[in-house]
């Protein structure tokens, strides 16, 4: 019986030991992981306040690391999708915790500016904008354009769809019945720009609504996000996916059978940086420095190397990555940011009620 007790006790101790060991191991690893994406300049920057960056762009953490290495300012990176970041920001309305936001879509920043949340009248000085870039800068300089993408490129399989549409209005034709898929603008921010652009193209909101209703009658399929839409393309549920062009290009790069087209009219979707107007002074200073870095040649180089299809650059002297067709050759349109920004809530609601769930 004593032997039995011995065994029991030994087993119990062993069990505890394993549990404790596992816990300790993970704790040790965990502590390194939580600081892993911080920069190497961490130890030197004991007195510098970290800059909190909310980024939806794939430029981070690459640009951030380079920035920290150059300036010694550590960056606290929160890297999620645009929708998630905006939800966070809005939920933090009573006590904002972010410093700098880098996303696709000026409309969102315009809306933030309407709520007086952004730093105004700041423009980086380290680089010169092209004429297109200059057009994108708002009057009160509340956000900073950094590149442009296109909302509303189509990705398709030529074998399945030999005649892709050259104009979005062609989507109503019977040959495309049930073959078109797009994202839900209520969930995917850049998709709203596409919807807004299309409505602008057909003449306004009422005409846009009737267009989309007809499109829905023609078998339009709406999915939650880029990922689901592109998966549907792979699964064969749709023959063409309307997505943001950088996603489309990366996708086509991976699956060579696919091609990317830009029907008339594709809407310009600028990626922008905006700064929290209520952030503590030290962070504002650092944020400005960050924006300056992005505009500088060094910053633009890093952007291109880290995320070549992130968008067409808008700085003078910069060339786009090879796979991007020249912007001037594409049927692009610009839409009035402030106006359409203000309509986002009602349009997406209408869309969700009538097109997605109807």
């Amino acid at each position, binding site marked *: *019986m*004593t032997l*039995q*007790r011995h065994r029991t006790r030994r087993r119990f101790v062993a069990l505890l030991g394993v549990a404790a060991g596992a816990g300790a191991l993970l704790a040790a690893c965990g502590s390194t992981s939580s600081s892993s994406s911080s920069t190497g300049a961490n130890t030197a920057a004991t007195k510098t306040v970290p800059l909190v960056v909310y980024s939806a762009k794939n430029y981070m953490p690459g640009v951030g690391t380079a920035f920290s290495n150059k300036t010694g300012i550590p960056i606290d990176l929160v890297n999620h999708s645009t929708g998630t970041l905006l939800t966070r920001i809005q939920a933090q309305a009573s006590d904002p915790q972010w410093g700098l936001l880098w996303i696709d879509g000026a409309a969102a920043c315009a809306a933030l500016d309407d709520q007086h949340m952004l730093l105004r009248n700041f423009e980086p000085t380290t680089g010169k904008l092209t004429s297109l870039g200059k057009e994108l800068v708002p009057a009160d300089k509340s956000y900073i354009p950094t590149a442009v993408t296109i909302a509303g490129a189509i990705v398709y399989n030529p074998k399945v769809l030999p005649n892709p549409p050259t104009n979005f209005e062609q989507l109503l034709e019977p040959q495309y019945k049930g073959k078109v898929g797009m994202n839900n603008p209520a969930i995917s921010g850049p998709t709203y720009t596409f919807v807004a652009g299309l409505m602008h193209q057909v003449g306004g909101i009422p005409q846009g609504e009737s267009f989309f209703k007809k499109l829905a009658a023609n078998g339009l399929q709406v999915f939650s996000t880029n990922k689901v839409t592109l998966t549907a393309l792979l699964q064969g549920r749709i023959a063409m996916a309307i997505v943001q062009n950088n996603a489309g290009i990366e996708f086509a790069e991976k699956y060579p059978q696919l091609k990317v087209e830009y029907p008339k009219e594709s809407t310009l979707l600028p990626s922008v940086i905006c700064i929290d107007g209520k952030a503590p002074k030290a962070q504002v200073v650092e944020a400005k420095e960050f924006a300056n870095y992005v505009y500088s040649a060094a910053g633009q180089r890093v952007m291109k190397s880290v995320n070549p299809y992130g968008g067409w650059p808008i700085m003078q002297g910069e060339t786009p990555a090879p796979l991007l067709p020249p912007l001037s050759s594409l049927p692009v349109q610009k839409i009035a940011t402030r106006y359409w920004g203000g309509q986002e809530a009602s349009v997406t609601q209408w869309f969700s009620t009538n097109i997605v769930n109807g």
Partner: protein
Amino acid sequence: MTHISAVERSVEAGDLRKEDGVPDGTKAQVAAAGLTKRFGPVVAVDEVSLTVAPGEFLVLLGPSGSGKSTLLRMIAGIDRPSAGTIHLGGALVDGPGVHTPPERRELAMVFQDYALWPHMTAAQNVQFALRRRRMERRERERAARDALERVGLSSKESRYPGELSGGEQQRVALARALVAQPGLLLFDEPLSNLDADRREQLRVDIAALVREQGATAIYITHDQFEAFALADKIGVLDRGRLVQLATPEEIFRAPATPFVARFTGLAGEIPGVVEEVTKDRVTVSTPAGLLAGTPFPGFELRRGAKAQLLIRPSAVRFGDEEQVAHARVAPFAGSVAAGETVIQGEVIDAAFRGWGYEHVVSVPGGRLHGVPAARRIGPGARARLVLVSSGSLVAPAGSGETSA
């Protein structure tokens, strides 16, 4: 510092443990006063007061629903009384604003369904109870082994409860209760779940082991034979009230209420009308004749009132020719003296008991059970029964129906 804390520990209200963890034997007695327990509108225990002297074996007897289990649980500290106080060893353990938890009451309990921990061996189960004694591990193991030996299970100490029979499990539970030598032992119908043959053996063992240790014991059961066999004192409970607290002999001879009488065994009952009342004898006119019996204290009977004659098993037997000749046949009028009376009846059942036969005899007014005889008297035979008035009790009609 240490000194004060030691003193404090021994004087602390309700904590009976002393410095070295061994209980003080002279104080191990139980005193309950006005104990009441309510569950919502229902009163399970109603103003029960009793005391148990050190070393005494008290049995609480009563049918289901009489509150005996609740009472025991209050003494154990598992349930808190709604009113009343409990003193253990002279110290207050339950009272207004005071409640000593079970683990500090220096007692042990044996449960009806054994309550052994299924994930521990028999030996581990027993050793568990020793942890409060601050012993060396070897000592603990030895003590547990001894305890198991005393209950006859030394060969099964490394078995798990699932591998033991019901009787064996209860023995382990008994060993567990005894091993730490607490001053007070509580038994919650420990034999109810066992087979008949095991029951008697274990009952004897319980009696022997408890006496050997000199512990005070409170034992609850609904079985009167168990109660009579084990108890120094019996407390009979009826619907939450303690109706009688006395030695077994007294309870048998002089039950305080008709309920006690019925619960502790009757041959049968015969209804009738009261004819004559004297201090220690009542004459009742029954369909079987005029019969005499002893009244219950506190139950008033008047001439002409309806009554029941409660007949103890020991008060009835078959009459042989001689006895019948000497005894008087119960007249139907006039008076009857104390002593023996003869009534007529018809046997309707005979059961073989090994030593002889027990018969059920139908008499005018009722049936009498358990009438013994060495030879079998077949059903249908007419018989004469001798009734002894000192073993018959008279109660008002409709008094104290059993709660069962």
